[in-house]
């Protein structure tokens, strides 16, 4: 054990009544596992809210201005149930905001980071348990702001998740709430990342060298570094925009523009400044949303291939390279923004370079599969799905990194296709795989395999049906409430209807997951300590692990991927086992 000991003065009040016990266990929880589950549950709830918003967007694109089912008559009684164009803008803005800031980042860093880091490095808890508690608490003001913003006259922020000024500065009050929510989410992530870094550096079990850490921990480690360095910039930018809105500071407003019959601005600001600051965070955020998933997928693929991860060190180096390059590619979001056109060349080169470490990772995953003894369990299928979908998302990334090609496809549905292949078809498939994989550790019961496989199959088919045709809509601008107002886009209606039907199918498929998740929590088969015969430390303790995690201090003797080692009888070789 490292020299840092965890002092945990907040303990559950054992003698209190049910309410006080609930409050002490779940509200004032300092146990990293409880906080991880809190993040998991709130993210999953928001996942469904974000999904509903996406379906409403798809509805409008397939059957524009027709009555919106269910909510149409509640919100738009005077127009007979059809949504307004401003409402449509709110839908895609809030869909992206919720999915990025309330679902993918919290579920990867918050839920799996919290749950797995101490268990995988052999620590009894995080380095700063109370800071950890605060990091979840700070999600709640963000939740409150966003929920409140839905009740504003314009139904929520509607300037896009990128919130480009001057438009965002002249939006209604929902935009201020949106900005505040983002500040709170940022503070939460910041606290989390400091905690992860300290825990990983200081609290590794004896024998757990950096290069014996599982890829999951490496993914979380690099992600935490990215968050720690990129988030302050976003927070500063958010506060600048907030003061532009409330204090008329004009950081982002040039001279003499007038919106909504308002007075002309006095100026002095730069519109492009926001875009630089925003993307300086938000491009690293793209990697924050995929590196932890890549780490978890590496562990799961190695486990079910019963074979060491191919090229462990190159995998670590490539994650590090992605993170490093991730800080100098933000300009590829701005090729046609009016930014210096010569500068675009350098951003193009760094963007192309980032394809290299990503490619190395894909090749190494295939190398891990090759010659293995593959067990196609549900988590494995999701992870193989992750790899094959990441190939598509990565390749379309190379297409759009070419600035001349980007002239055509920038701000069109091609971009929407790309980002959903990376964020949904890769990150979310990885997250679902991870849930199926670590569920037995979290709840002590197995998830149903048959339902899991049906869930995978339908999700995989429907997601390709929804997102692949978007590549062909590279002349259809995104964020347009009624694309068919353009003569040249009228013929795209049937394709959009097909995609919407697939999206509805994908949404319904997730109900299978909900049923499986809650059903298995109570009725699933009991899982032992190590149901998958995996090597890493979390599988040496009981499921679910108690407060303090390990009954004996684990001592690490080897790397995490010694599957099918020639010198052992069975095909796995836990990290703690004496040879």
């Amino acid at each position, binding site marked *: 054990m490292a020299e840092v000991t965890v002092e945990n003065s907040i303990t559950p009040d054992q003698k209190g009544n049910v309410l006080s016990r609930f409050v002490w266990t779940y509200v004032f929880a300092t146990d990293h596992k409880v906080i991880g589950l809190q993040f998991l549950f709130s993210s999953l709830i928001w996942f469904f809210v974000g999904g509903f918003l996406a379906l409403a967007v798809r509805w409008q694109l397939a059957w524009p201005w027709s009555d919106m089912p269910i909510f149409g008559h509640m919100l738009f009684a005077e127009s007979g149930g059809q949504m307004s164009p401003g409402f449509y803008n709110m839908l895609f803005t809030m869909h992206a905001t919720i999915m990025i800031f309330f679902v993918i980042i919290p579920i990867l860093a918050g839920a799996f980071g919290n749950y797995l880091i101490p268990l995988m490095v052999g620590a009894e808890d995080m380095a700063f348990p109370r800071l950890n508690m605060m990091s979840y608490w700070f999600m709640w003001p963000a939740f409150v702001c966003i929920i409140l913003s839905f009740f504003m006259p314009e139904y929520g922020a509607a300037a896009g998740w990128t919130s480009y000024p001057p438009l965002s500065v002249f939006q209604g009050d929902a935009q201020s709430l949106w900005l505040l929510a983002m500040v709170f989410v940022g503070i939460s992530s910041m606290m989390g990342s400091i905690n992860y870094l300290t825990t990983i550096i200081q609290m590794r079990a004896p024998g757990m060298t950096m290069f014996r850490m599982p890829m999951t921990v490496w993914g979380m480690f690099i992600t935490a570094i990215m968050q720690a360095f990129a988030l302050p910039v976003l927070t500063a930018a958010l506060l600048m925009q907030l003061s532009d809105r409330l204090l008329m500071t004009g950081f982002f407003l040039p001279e003499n523009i007038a919106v909504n*019959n308002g007075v002309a601005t006095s100026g002095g600001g730069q519109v492009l400044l926001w875009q630089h600051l925003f993307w300086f965070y938000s491009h690293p955020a793209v990697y924050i949303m995929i590196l932890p998933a890549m780490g978890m997928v590496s562990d799961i693929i190695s486990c079910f291939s019963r074979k060491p991860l191919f090229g462990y060190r190159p995998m670590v180096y490539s994650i590090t390279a992605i993170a490093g390059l991730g800080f100098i590619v933000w300009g590829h979001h701005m090729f046609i923004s009016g930014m210096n056109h010569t500068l675009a060349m350098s951003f193009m080169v760094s963007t192309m370079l980032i394809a290299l470490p990503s490619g190395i990772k894909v090749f190494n995953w295939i190398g891990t599969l090759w010659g293995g003894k593959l067990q196609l369990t549900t988590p494995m299928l999701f992870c193989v799905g992750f790899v094959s979908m990441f190939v598509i998302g990565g390749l379309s990334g190379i297409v759009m990194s070419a600035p001349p090609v980007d002239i055509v496809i920038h701000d069109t549905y091609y971009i929407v296709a790309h980002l959903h292949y990376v964020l949904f078809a890769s990150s979310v498939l990885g997250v679902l795989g991870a849930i199926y994989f670590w569920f037995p550790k979290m709840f002590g019961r197995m998830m149903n395999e048959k339902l899991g496989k049906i869930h995978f199959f339908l999700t995989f088919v429907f997601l390709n049906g929804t997102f692949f045709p978007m590549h062909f809509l590279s002349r259809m601008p995104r964020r347009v409430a009624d694309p068919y107002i353009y003569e040249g886009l009228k013929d795209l209606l049937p394709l959009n209807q097909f995609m919407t039907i697939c999206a509805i199918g994908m949404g319904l498929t997730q109900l299978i997951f909900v049923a499986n998740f809650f059903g298995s929590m109570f009725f699933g088969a009991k899982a032992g300590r190590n149901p998958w015969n995996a090597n890493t430390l979390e599988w040496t303790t009981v499921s679910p692990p108690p407060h303090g995690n390990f009954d004996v201090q684990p001592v690490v003797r080897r790397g995490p991927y010694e599957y099918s080692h020639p010198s052992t009888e069975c095909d796995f070789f836990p990290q703690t086992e004496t040879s």
Partner: protein
Amino acid sequence: MNRFWSVLFLLVPILGIATVLMAMYGVAPLESAWLPKSLSEAGDTIDQLFNGIHLLSAFILAGTVFTIGWALWRFSDRGDSNEKALYVTHNTKLEIAWTVIPALILIFLAFFQMKSWAENKMDRPTVTVDGVTDFKPPMVMVKAKRFGWEFYYAGDDGVVETEDDIFVENLLVLPAGEEIVLQMESRDVIHSFYVPELRLKQDIVPGMTQFVWFNAREEKEIEIMCTELCGWGHYMMKAKLDFVSRAQFDAWIEEQKSAYSPEFKNAAELSALLRDSNKSFAAKFSNDARPQLKLKIN
């Protein structure tokens, strides 16, 4: 069941590449799905890059995902042998190969496309008059506003933003077969000028001036789209772009000059815009639009 999953993964590159090729070479039902026919030489170059990188991507997609599908077919554990998996941790030669080869391809791509980018965005056309070379003056000044386009043609003096500018709204008529330079500014928020047929897109940022140039080879009527979210009416911010012969263009400009009358007809223009959108409820947002200088609507 293992075979079923490997077939599922094998279907990804098969269907993916088949549909991409169908869209690229115009096979039904995706014959018109991808980009519309290019109207300019610069657009042709972009198309070649677009198709070339897609073909390369298709090749890589096939290679990687076929390997995944085949690995699932070949190496699945069917419980019929007690042999353990291969114990292989790395292979330095293989890893160097799959780092260096993609690196070379990417470096080639990076340098190969620079020329096209420079032609489209950096080498602004010039003219030489009396031995002095200067930028070619813009033919039209584009002012983007929520939610429409204002076009100011340089009048007889050949300079935009002067007294004799000819103003037209939401209609841009230009001569085909000539190199044309547009100057663009925004009145309020960020807009983006997108003409898919010309492979042309440029954000119009308030407080900055942008120039675009192009040379359409055919006479054709197409559309200008706004591709940067600019508010509730973003979707209806369109304009007509009509490429005509030089003679027709000159006649049209003369007609516009005589039609010039400095009247304010914002209400009529607005209602036309709203009729165009064909959405009755849009009326309730009409306070959002500023009174506009309106001269002629086609």
